[in-house]
């Protein structure tokens, strides 16, 4: 499978394995295409998870990770791509319906926007919250004091 991808996309894809788990590092430009191929041709019909990791010191600080599973092949694969702050990435809601809430959570926690998402708004935090908590520059005890004061009527949540 990876051999076929390598032939088609050359340096845009790098297949790697760590601790027995396979993952593909993919260029951002290839993103909706590769995921569509994985679902249609390679039968990865179940999107297990979509998440992100923040590496603030890199020049492309965010790693967006899709974890996919194929029922017929009983195989899991991860697809990773790196994006810069402020860049948006294609949504995969049209490929796997489960991506709806998973991408909303990534947006909520990291601030990564997904193009063509039907309803991209905050899911776990209140709607007017400012800031994206899972970024590394958001403090562990930090809260959006303005929201807390306006909505809860107290000075601080701590």
């Amino acid at each position, binding site marked *: 499978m990876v051999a076929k991808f390598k032939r088609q996309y050359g340096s845009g894809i790098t297949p790697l394995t760590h601790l027995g788990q396979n993952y593909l590092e993919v260029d951002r430009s290839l993103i909706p295409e590769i995921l569509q191929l994985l679902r249609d041709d390679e039968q990865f019909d*179940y999107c*297990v998870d979509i998440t992100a990791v923040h590496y603030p010191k890199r020049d492309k600080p965010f790693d967006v990770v899709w974890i996919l599973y194929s*029922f017929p092949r009983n195989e899991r694969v*991860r697809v990773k791509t790196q994006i810069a702050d402020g860049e948006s990435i294609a949504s995969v809601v049209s490929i*796997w*319906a489960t991506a709806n809430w998973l991408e909303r959570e990534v947006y909520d926690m990291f601030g990564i926007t997904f193009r063509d998402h039907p309803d991209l708004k905050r899911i*776990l935090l209140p709607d007017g919250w400012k800031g994206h908590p899972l970024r590394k520059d958001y403090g562990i005890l930090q809260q959006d004091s303005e929201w807390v004061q306006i909505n809860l009527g107290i000075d601080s949540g701590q």
Partner: protein
Amino acid sequence: MTDPKTLSPPSLETHVGAHDNTFLDANELVINMGPQHPATHGVLRVILRLDGEKVLGLECVIGYLHRGVEKIAENRTYTMFNPYVDRMDYVAAVSNGLGYCEAVEKLLSVEAPPRAQYIRVILTELNRIASHQLWLGTHALDIGAITPLFYTFRDREEILKIFEKYCGARLTTHAFRIGGLQYEAYDGFEKDVKNFIAFVKPKIDEYEELLTTNRIWLERTRGVGVISGKDCIALGVTGPVLRASGVKWDIRKAQPYANYRNFDFEIPTGLNGDTYDRYLVRMVEMRQALRIIEQAVDGIPEGPVMAKVPKVMKPPVGEIYHSIEAPKGELGYFIVSDGSTQPYRVRVRPPSFVNLQALDMMCRGQLVADVIAVIGTLDIVLGEVDR
């Protein structure tokens, strides 16, 4: 002033006609099933759009129990984070601990010794039975059957007593450690478990006697909240919901972990994907869990319960994704390590969060009372949905 006796009685045609000509031509009613509600199993807010009593669509608003567990993980060491994991799905705390400990063990490339694995499996399956019992009690209560609640909670006490004797806690057990177990099985552990198996088998029969052929139960659950297997896979729904829609998939068989290979058990599937099938699937799962416990408790090997792990855990740089079959579905941990004592990122893939997404689709065209039944049958725990 017209004399009321001379007015003709309203006929169906005039009544319907009159309804169409009123100025209230919007048929849609938006009702909020607020975060505080006895039947939403926690703080879940559901905004319903209704046409009379039929549901046109709904939207779930979650996040009322969001505690930032993933952010906390980045500020604790691996061992320090272990107790936090129980608090997510607080009903099945042992499974959460199993998933996390196994994920970190994979990162460290250690394996728990066989004795620890047997005891882990026994405790996890006991917790599966406890979780399903709680599910049955609360789900039946939502639908209106009050008795199963008392029966299941009474029987669940025996499991919680075993947990208390083993690790001191009933609900948020923190039973496992990275590399194995901290506590040796107490004297009489096997005897207690065997007594429990003999005790609970007739009790499960009792629950079935109350509900399985009960006419009211059948009317309330047959055909309610139907979802097809294909839709389940597209929406990422796992666990008993997926199995009741006909897809025979269980991580314990597909990608076995923690020596489930050694045990012989079956995976129940349903035909229709409705609430009644999900009920039957979970009842069979309880019995299969008992079967696993029976096999395990007879063969616990001797040996150490803790593998050799360093006191200061610094897993090598890398990422791992490990998932287990929690009672609610596929519970996954994606852990990124940067070589230091604290994880760089811990992502918990919660089954209840992904299953709850399917609520909108399952409730279209159903009545309001069925929404309650479907929320119950999805078996969500808000601690896990929100983390």
